[in-house]
């Protein structure tokens, strides 16, 4: 709960500090890169969480990382602020909220499509066009291969899931058999 509240507050603040919406994607990419680095390097988390390491050293480390990732000023300031306020460990939550805020500003929506095979370009384009027409937004499609589906696809837009997989149909069939009344 606290994590969500902090993530939302900093994400909103970061979004407001970026006036040009075209920069939002770059900022999001930088934030996600930072998150990936933190998740890949547990030592980095321990370094920033350690109360004995001076603030200057942590700030220096942030500057180095920002240089490596070629992060813009907005991200750099945000990370420094988080380090100073000892909120750097909430970065993943902030990045997730920022993605939502950024998508809203850019009038776009992220769609995750899972299928048993890698989707062909024309299939992805067909889906993107149709969803763009339905939702009246720019559609960003992320595809995944999931062999547990047996066949068909599932689609997730935010909290909405449309499941047209064989696995789901078998599950419905199973429920129907289980509920079947015996005379």
């Amino acid at each position, binding site marked *: 709960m606290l994590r969500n509240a902090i993530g939302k507050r900093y994400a909103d603040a970061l979004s407001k500090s970026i006036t040009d919406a075209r920069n939002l994607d770059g900022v999001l990419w930088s934030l996600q890169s930072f998150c990936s680095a933190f998740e890949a390097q547990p030592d980095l988390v321990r370094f920033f969480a350690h109360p004995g390491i001076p603030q200057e050293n942590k700030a220096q480390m942030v500057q180095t990382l920002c240089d490596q990732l070629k992060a813009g000023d907005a991200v750099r300031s945000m990370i420094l602020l988080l380090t100073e306020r000892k909120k750097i460990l909430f970065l993943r939550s902030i990045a997730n909220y920022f993605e939502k805020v950024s998508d809203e500003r850019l009038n776009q929506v992220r769609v995750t499509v899972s299928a*048993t095979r890698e989707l062909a370009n024309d*299939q992805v384009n067909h889906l993107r066009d149709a969803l763009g027409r339905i*939702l009246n937004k720019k559609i960003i499609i992320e595809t995944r291969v999931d062999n547990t589906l047996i066949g068909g696809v599932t689609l997730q837009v935010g909290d909405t899931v*449309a499941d047209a997989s*064989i696995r789901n149909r*078998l599950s419905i069939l199973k429920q129907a058999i289980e509920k079947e009344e*015996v005379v």
Partner: protein
Amino acid sequence: MPQFEQVGVFSSLIFWSLVSFAILFVLLKKYAFPPILEALEERESKIRNDISSAEQLRAEGQKIKAELEAELKKAHEKANTIVQLAHDEAKKNQDKLLQETQAKIKQMQQEAEYEIQSSRNKLFNDIRNYAAELTVASVEKFLRKRLDDQTSQELINESIDEVIRSMEQSAN
């Protein structure tokens, strides 16, 4: 009669006999009769008293007898009442016991029926679940074997159209 022909001979004798009888009578009347009469009266009085006592005793006896008979009758009635009450009580207990036994039998019957029904339901549930598992597992195995690339692609295309329709319905 020849005896009376001799009156002249015995006249003095008769005379003196009469005199001595009179004297004897007077003496007897004066000295002997009173105590005898008194004794007789006493005796009579005593007998009367005895008779009276006997009558009284008899009356008392009759009374006691009547009382005893009444008591006996009462005791009889009481005994009859007690027997009747005991009979009623026994019948009541018997009825109560019968009702309790019937209720217990009914409850046992209901419990047995419920248990049978529960077991039946559980068995059918198990069968249904097993049948469902078996069906799904068989279909899944069959599909995994039979789904080639072309069929999978066709299925994906159909599914894409289906999710698009689903999203359209949600949007409307």
